[in-house]
């Protein structure tokens, strides 16, 4: 009788094992997956330009150029501010144009490059006739070169393009 019980328990265990194996099989489905990954470094550096002026104002004339001392290509523009008591004549070299009181260089300035042509500032009043010292402030502003969706260079034409321009300015008193 005892032997019979043992066999019965063994039989039940065997049945449970087979049942469990059956459940596992019925819930398994064919699945698969694959994965790909990749990326690119981006370069987004600030621009640096410096005004390169002739020192002093010999012959009441000042010559202004701009150098790109940063690490990325940039666009640049120049502002020249002077007292209202001065009569100033500003001559633009090739590549420069004026708009809204700023002088824009129409070519991309590569790192280490200097504008090919200059801006010449001429004070037409005699210094002797000017009662006090005067100064001329030169401001250069620059923004990184950006691109359109098709890969072409985006030329900054609107003032809004220059809202985040890095700037550098000098003020010389004469």
């Amino acid at each position: 009788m005892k032997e019979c019980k043992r066999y019965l328990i063994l039989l039940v265990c065997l049945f449970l094992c087979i049942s469990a194996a059956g459940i596992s099989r019925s819930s398994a489905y064919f699945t698969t997956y694959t994965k790909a990954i990749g990326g690119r470094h981006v370069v987004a550096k600030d621009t640096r330009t410096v005004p390169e002026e002739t020192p002093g104002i010999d012959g009441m004339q000042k010559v202004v150029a701009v150098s790109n001392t940063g690490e990325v290509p940039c666009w640049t523009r120049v502002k020249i501010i002077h007292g209202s008591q001065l009569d100033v004549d500003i001559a633009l070299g090739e590549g420069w144009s004026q708009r809204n009181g700023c002088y824009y260089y129409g070519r991309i300035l590569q790192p280490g490059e200097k504008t090919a042509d200059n801006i010449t500032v001429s004070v037409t009043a005699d210094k002797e006739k000017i009662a006090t010292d005067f100064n001329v402030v030169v401001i250069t502003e620059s923004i990184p070169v950006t691109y359109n969706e098709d890969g072409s260079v985006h030329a900054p034409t609107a003032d809004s393009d220059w809202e985040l321009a890095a700037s550098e300015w000098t003020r010389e008193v004469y």
Partner: protein
Amino acid sequence: MKKNRVSPVKMLLLFAVILCLGFSGVQTTRAALSVQSNYYRAQANMQDTGIAIMENGVQITDRFNEPEYRGRLLGGDLMLMNGETVADFNYGVRYRENLAVKNTGTIDQFVRVFVTRYWAELDENGNVIRKLPELNPELIEVRFVDGNWTNPVLTPSGERYTLYYTGNGGILAPDEVSPIFADSIRVNGDLELIVSTVTTDVVDGKKVTVYTYIYDGKAFILEVEAQGVQTHNAKDAVISAWGKEASEILTNAGVLK
């Protein structure tokens, strides 16, 4: 009383007869086996599931051969939308990134893909060292294509899209390449989005204003994972493998009945 003894010779003879009979019996059995029946052949075909990712028409992953099943996206030269190849990456430019899935298995499959985008630091071999969740993944714009896939659903973090294949009844047949689900990638280059701080200093008598670009030197990452599941016993298979939400999406899309 005289004992009835069997002589040794007779005993030996009897033993020999028994042996002969025994061997003859074995021989008969062997003969019977050799003519019993013809061979019957049975064949069972093992089914495989496999899936691969296609980038600009090139298969870049292989479910069975690629170590860890990983392929390399955005490798080599980049391609502009007009087909011109360029080596350097620039902000704002849209690059061709035609992404599709191929069924490399032997059975029909339902397919879904995850497209993940984020910023990270990479080592010199291009492996991700550290994710940068503080940088905005929305600057990495993947343009999806309508028609044969469900509308991409984006996670709240803005990192991961999920799409399900719905073309051709949602079934991707063996060796079939799906229609593309994305056609391009672009990183938004608006300066106001990528500039973080501005400082103004006087250096050597010059007033200098400088901006800091927090994305400089960082890498944008694109990950694509494709998953497949059998179409036989469809609803149970989808629920079991991908969950109830996936089943509802595919039902709403008309793929599951």
